[in-house]
């Protein structure tokens, strides 16, 4: 019995320093942890063309995904994708499932109460899209129409504000469902990014889908958890460098087919 106790003491003495060493005196920030583990976890939404999609072999692709890949490469760490639906882009970051979310999240004052935005790495247009036969020329024409929008997107933050009384707004959880609702005629029109809009229009030539209204232009940016200033500063530095050397513009052009407008910083 005493032998066993001695053995126990020896084991505790041998193990204790390693356990203590695991807790550094200074609280470790997210950037330190990423560099130490040599791995960054990036939340992406692959149901949001052309920013995030799955390619024909089921691998993530799109402009957000390309930005994440280049960023991880320049940071010199392994990249782990955390695929989330559009409603999960902020919660998964806050829950610590990802270190940063790069999913074309438009900068809004409301969102900034909960997460920290980096500098914008792209811009998008929100439009109202409908079949040619549908008469919508001004926001007032939305009254009485069924307009499909996706939860947790910029459409949700902007369209209800411009829509007149009597507009019937129909909410979907995913952009795919919103598009499907337009194609199957469950809604009269939908709000989407202009890029998703042109993809839908060209994929359904028989429906004669066209842009009806421009709702807003928005800049989108990577987001990090509140307090992750070191990580945010590194990402801002990366965005600065890659705006200067043209990498961001090239990636944007490759996936959206249009030129990247000048990106403001804050």
């Amino acid at each position, binding site marked *: 019995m005493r032998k066993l106790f001695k053995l126990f003491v020896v084991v505790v003495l041998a193990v204790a320093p390693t356990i203590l060493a695991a807790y550094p005196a200074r609280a470790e920030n997210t950037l330190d942890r990423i560099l130490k583990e040599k791995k960054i976890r990036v939340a992406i939404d692959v149901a949001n063309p052309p920013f995030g999609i799955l390619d024909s072999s089921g691998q993530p692709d799109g402009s957000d995904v390309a930005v994440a890949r280049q960023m991880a490469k320049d940071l010199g760490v392994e990249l782990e994708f955390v695929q989330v639906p559009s*409603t999960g882009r*902020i*919660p998964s970051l*806050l*829950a*610590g499932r990802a270190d940063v979310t790069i999913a074309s999240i438009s900068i809004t004052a*409301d*969102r900034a*109460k*909960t*997460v920290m935005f980096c500098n914008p790495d792209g811009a998008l247009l929100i439009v109202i899209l409908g079949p040619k036969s549908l008469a919508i020329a001004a926001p007032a024409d939305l009254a009485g129409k069924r307009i*499909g929008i996706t*939860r*947790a997107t910029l459409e*949700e*933050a902007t369209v209800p504000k411009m829509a007149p009384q009597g507009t019937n707004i*129909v*909410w*979907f*959880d*995913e952009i795919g*469902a919103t598009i*499907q*609702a337009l194609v*199957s*005629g*469950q809604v009269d029109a939908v709000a989407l990014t202009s890029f998703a809009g042109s993809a839908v229009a060209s994929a359904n030539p028989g429906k004669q889908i066209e842009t009806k209204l421009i709702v807003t232009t928005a800049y989108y940016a990577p987001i990090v958890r509140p307090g992750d200033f070191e990580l945010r500063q590194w990402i801002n530095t990366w965005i600065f460098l890659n705006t200067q050397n043209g990498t961001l513009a090239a990636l944007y052009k490759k996936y959206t087919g249009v030129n990247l407008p000048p990106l403001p910083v804050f």
Partner: protein
Amino acid sequence: MNYAFRFNVVWDHFPELMNGALLTIELSATAMAMGLGLAVLCAYGKSAGPRPVRWLLAGYVELIRNTPFLVQIFIFYFSLPMIGIRLTANSAALAAMTINLGAYASEILRAGIEAVPRGQVEAARALGLRRLQIFRSIIIFPALKAVYPALTSQFILVMLSSSVVSTISAVELTAVTNSLQSTTFRSFEFYFVAMGLYFAMSLGFRASLSVIYWAAFERSR
């Protein structure tokens, strides 16, 4: 983890959550009643119908029990309009829930029907009771009583799986919760409260179903 909970945001929006919960209750209760009716019809068709009807019913039960509920909902909402049947989100959800529950409940009922002793059915036949009379008084009533606990569990499952219908824009509790969390960004708070509401609804349904059991099977003794 230094997350500051702010539940006051949830209480500000509580009436909206209650509206969502109300639709969940409406959809679930209607689907339970209609699904059980469908299951009894299927059970009758299976025990007394001609062979093609029995095959058709077996096909229906297997098709529904071996495909995901989410896909069934999508078919009702997104695919039926292609052939000219346009259901609103709520009707599509209700139809999918009813048809789904009908398949599962008819399998549960089958177990109950098989547990009815053959001798009783033969005795009823010898006494000159007609097919429908035998089915009603000798088979389905004791069968329902025997499988009632299993049916109750299936009913509760239907109520819980109704959370999926938010994907086709039906504004039930999960849809309201998702909208609120995505505009206020207080996802933990809203999901916690939604969980509590679902739990309360489960308990409420269980209690109501127990009362129905008592009224249908116990009171007459």
